[in-house]
C-alpha cells in the first residue's frame, strides 16, 4: 500500500501553518502558564472549519482523508500541543458514534461536533483502570427506558468542558469488562453528572483533564452505542484509529522544537561563531530532523491504512504512535540541550514543548501497550499467535 501527498494536502498544510503561526503560537506560552482552556482558539478553529475535518459533509464536516486530518493536527501541534487537542479530542470522542452509532445518533450529535458548537470527550479510563481497561467498574443498570449510570472516570481530556461524552460502563458486571461493558452517549447537562476535579499537569496544561462522577445519571436507551456488551470492542476500535492523532501531535511538537533549535543555533554566538557552525550542534540538529521526518512518514503511511480500513491498521497506528511519541520526547529534550540554559527557562518555548511531549508517550495507550499491540499483530502474522495479556489499553 502506498501513499502520496497531493497538492490539496500541501495547500491544507500551508493554510493551517499560517493560521497556527499567526494566531496560535503567540498564545501558547500564556495558555501553558494560565492552564486555562483556550476558548478563543476553539472558536477560531471552528470558524476555519478545522474541527469538522473528520466528519462527513452531510453532518457539516469537510470529510478530509486521514492524512489530511493528520496534517491539521501536526501543524497545530507545531505551534501549541494544547490547542492541537481540540480537533484531536473532537475526533476521539466522536469515533465511537461514527463507528457504532445509529443514523439517529449521528444526525443528532455529529453536526454539533463538526461545527464546534459542542465539545465532546471520551470517557473510558478510571482511577483503577488505566492500561487495564477491562477492569473498569462504572455501572449502567437498565431501568425502564433508561440506563442509570453510577461510578467515576478519571484522566478524561476535555471532561470538564465537554457538552457530551462517549462513556463506557458495565451493563453486565458478571461478564467482566471485555464482554459486559457498553458504550453510551451522555450529555453533561444530565442531572447526577459532575466534574469532581481538574488535574494539575506537567504539560498540555491548557487542556483540562478531569475526574468525572456519575451519580444516578439517567441515559435514554436510544443513547446506547451498539448492543449491550459491545463497549470494549467499540473502545478498542476507536483507539486503534485515534492514536494516530497522537502520533501526528508528537510529530508536530518535535517539528516545533526543531524550528526553535535551528533558529536559536543560527543566531546564538559563542567562542566567536554561531552555535550552528559547531559540528556537535549540527549532528544534533540532523538527528532531530531525520528522526522526525521518519516519524512523520510512518504516521502518513499509517493514515493511509486507516483510510483503507486495513486489517492490520492497529500494527501501523501503534507503530506510528510509538515511534512518534519517543521521537518527540527525544527531539524536544535535545532542543533544550541546543538552547542550553535558555532552553530551560520559560523565556523560550522548548521547555514547554519538552513537557508537552511527555504525554504523547502516555495517553491513548502507553508506549508499552503499543508494543504489546505491535507484537501481537507480528506474532499473529507469523501464525504463532500471541500469549499476551488480555487486549488492554490506557486512554487518559
Amino acid at each position, binding site marked *: 500500500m502506498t501513499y502520496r501527498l497531493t497538492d490539496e494536502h500541501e495547500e491544507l498544510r500551508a*493554510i493551517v501553518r499560517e493560521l497556527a503561526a499567526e494566531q496560535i503560537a503567540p498564545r501558547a506560552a500564556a495558555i501553558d502558564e494560565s492552564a486555562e482552556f483556550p476558548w478563543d482558539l476553539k472558536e477560531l478553529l471552528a470558524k476555519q*472549519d478545522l474541527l469538522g475535518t473528520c466528519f462527513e459533509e452531510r453532518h457539516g464536516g*469537510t470529510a*478530509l482523508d486521514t492524512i489530511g486530518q493528520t496534517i491539521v493536527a501536526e501543524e497545530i501541534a507545531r505551534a501549541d500541543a494544547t490547542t492541537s487537542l481540540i480537533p484531536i479530542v473532537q475526533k476521539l470522542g466522536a469515533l465511537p458514534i461514527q463507528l457504532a452509532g445509529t443514523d439517529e445518533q449521528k444526525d443528532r450529535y455529529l453536526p454539533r461536533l463538526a461545527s464546534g458548537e459542542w465539545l465532546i470527550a471520551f470517557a473510558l479510563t478510571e482511577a483503577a483502570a488505566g492500561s487495564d481497561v477491562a477492569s473498569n467498574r462504572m455501572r449502567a443498570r437498565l431501568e425502564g427506558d433508561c440506563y442509570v449510570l453510577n461510578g467515576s472516570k478519571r484522566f478524561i481530556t476535555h471532561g470538564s468542558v465537554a457538552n457530551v461524552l462517549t462513556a463506557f460502563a458495565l451493563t453486565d458486571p458478571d461478564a467482566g469488562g471485555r464482554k459486559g461493558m457498553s458504550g453510551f452517549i451522555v450529555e453533561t447537562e444530565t442531572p447526577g453528572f459532575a466534574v469532581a476535579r481538574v488535574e494539575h499537569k506537567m504539560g498540555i496544561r491548557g487542556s483540562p483533564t478531569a475526574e468525572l462522577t456519575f451519580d444516578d445519571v439517567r441515559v435514554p436507551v436510544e443513547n446506547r452505542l451498539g448492543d449491550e456488551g459491545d463497549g470494549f470492542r467499540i473502545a478498542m476500535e476507536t483507539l486503534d484509529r485515534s492514536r494516530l492523532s497522537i502520533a501526528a501531535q508528537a510529530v508536530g511538537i518535535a517539528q516545533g522544537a526543531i524550528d526553535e533549535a535551528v533558529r536559536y543555533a543560527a543566531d546564538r554566538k559563542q567562542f566567536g561563531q554561531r552555535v550552528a557552525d559547531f559540528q556537535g550542534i549540527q549532528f544534533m540538529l540532523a538527528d532531530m530532523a531525520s528522526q522526525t521526518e521518519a516519524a512523520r512518514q510512518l504516521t502518513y503511511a499509517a493514515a493511509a491504512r486507516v483510510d483503507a480500513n486495513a486489517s492490520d491498521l492497529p500494527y501501523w497506528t501503534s507503530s506510528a504512535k510509538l515511534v512518534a511519541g519517543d521521537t518527540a520526547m527525544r527531539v524536544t529534550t535535545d532542543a533544550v540541550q541546543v538552547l542550553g540554559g535558555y532552553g530551560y527557562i520559560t523565556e523560550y518555548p522548548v521547555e514547554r514543548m519538552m513537557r508537552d511531549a511527555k504525554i504523547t508517550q502516555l495517553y491513548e495507550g502507553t508506549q508499552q501497550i503499543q508494543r504489546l499491540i505491535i507484537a501481537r499483530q507480528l506474532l499473529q502474522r507469523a501464525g504463532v499467535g500471541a500469549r499476551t495479556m488480555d487486549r488492554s489499553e490506557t486512554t487518559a
Partner: protein
Amino acid sequence: MKIVVCIKQVPATTAEKRYTADLRLDRASAESVINPLDEYAIEQALRLAEAGAAESVAYLSMGPDSAAEALRRALAMGGDEAHLVTDDALAGADEWATAKVLAAALDKLGPDVTLMGMASDDARGSLVPGAVAALRGLPLLSYGSELSLADGSARIRRLTATGYDMIEAPLPVVATVTDQVGEPRYASLKGIMAAKRKPLETWSLGDIGVEGGSLRGAALTRVVEAKPPEAKPPTERVENVSADEAAAKIADWLAARKLI
C-alpha cells in the same frame, strides 16, 4: 450592486527579491502571495456583500498564469468569480500599461464599484487606481479607512492628520482602501474547497479588445537601477558607564546630529 476587486500577485514580503538581467522582478524565485494591501480591499468587499450592500464580488488580476493561484486564494476567502488577464505581450508592464489593461477588462465587467488596495507591496507606485479611474472617466475615492454604499453613491472615510474626511461620489466609482478597514479573514477550509468550483476565467488581450501594439512594449517607463537599501551604520552602544555618564554621552550624540 457589483463589486470588482483588483488584486495583484506579488512575492511574499519576507522573500528575498531577485531581479532578471533587464531589472524585472524574478517572480519565479520567490513564494508568491496576494499583495497584502489588496487583502484589505477583499475584506472590505466581502463585508459589504455580507451586509447585503453588494450582490456580487468578483476579482480581476493581470499577471502571468501563476496569478491564478492568487485569484483562487481570494475566492477561498469569499466572492463569486475571478478573471485573469494574461498575455505574453504584457511581460514587463508598467503602471500605465497595467491601468490600460485593467480599464479595458473593467469596461467588459461593468462593476458599480472597482475596489483596490492602496499600493502594491512590490512596486509601490500607487498609480494604477487613479489611472484606471481616469481612463474610465470615473470618480476616484482614495485611501478609505472604510467604504460604504447607499442610495446610488459610494462614500469613504479617509483619516487625516486632524480627524477624518467623508468623501462621496455617485456610482460607478473606483475606490482604494487602507489597512484600517479591519483584519483580512483567513480562508476557511470549506472556503478553500468551494473556491475550486467557482468560475475563474482567463482572458487574452484580444478577449478584452486591447491591441498589443497599443501598449508600446507594455511600458512607457523603464527601470534603470534596482539596489538594496544602503546598510545602516553599526549601532553605537553606551555600556559599562554610570547612568549620568551614559545620559551625557547620549545627549552629546544627539546634539552632534542636531536632534536635540
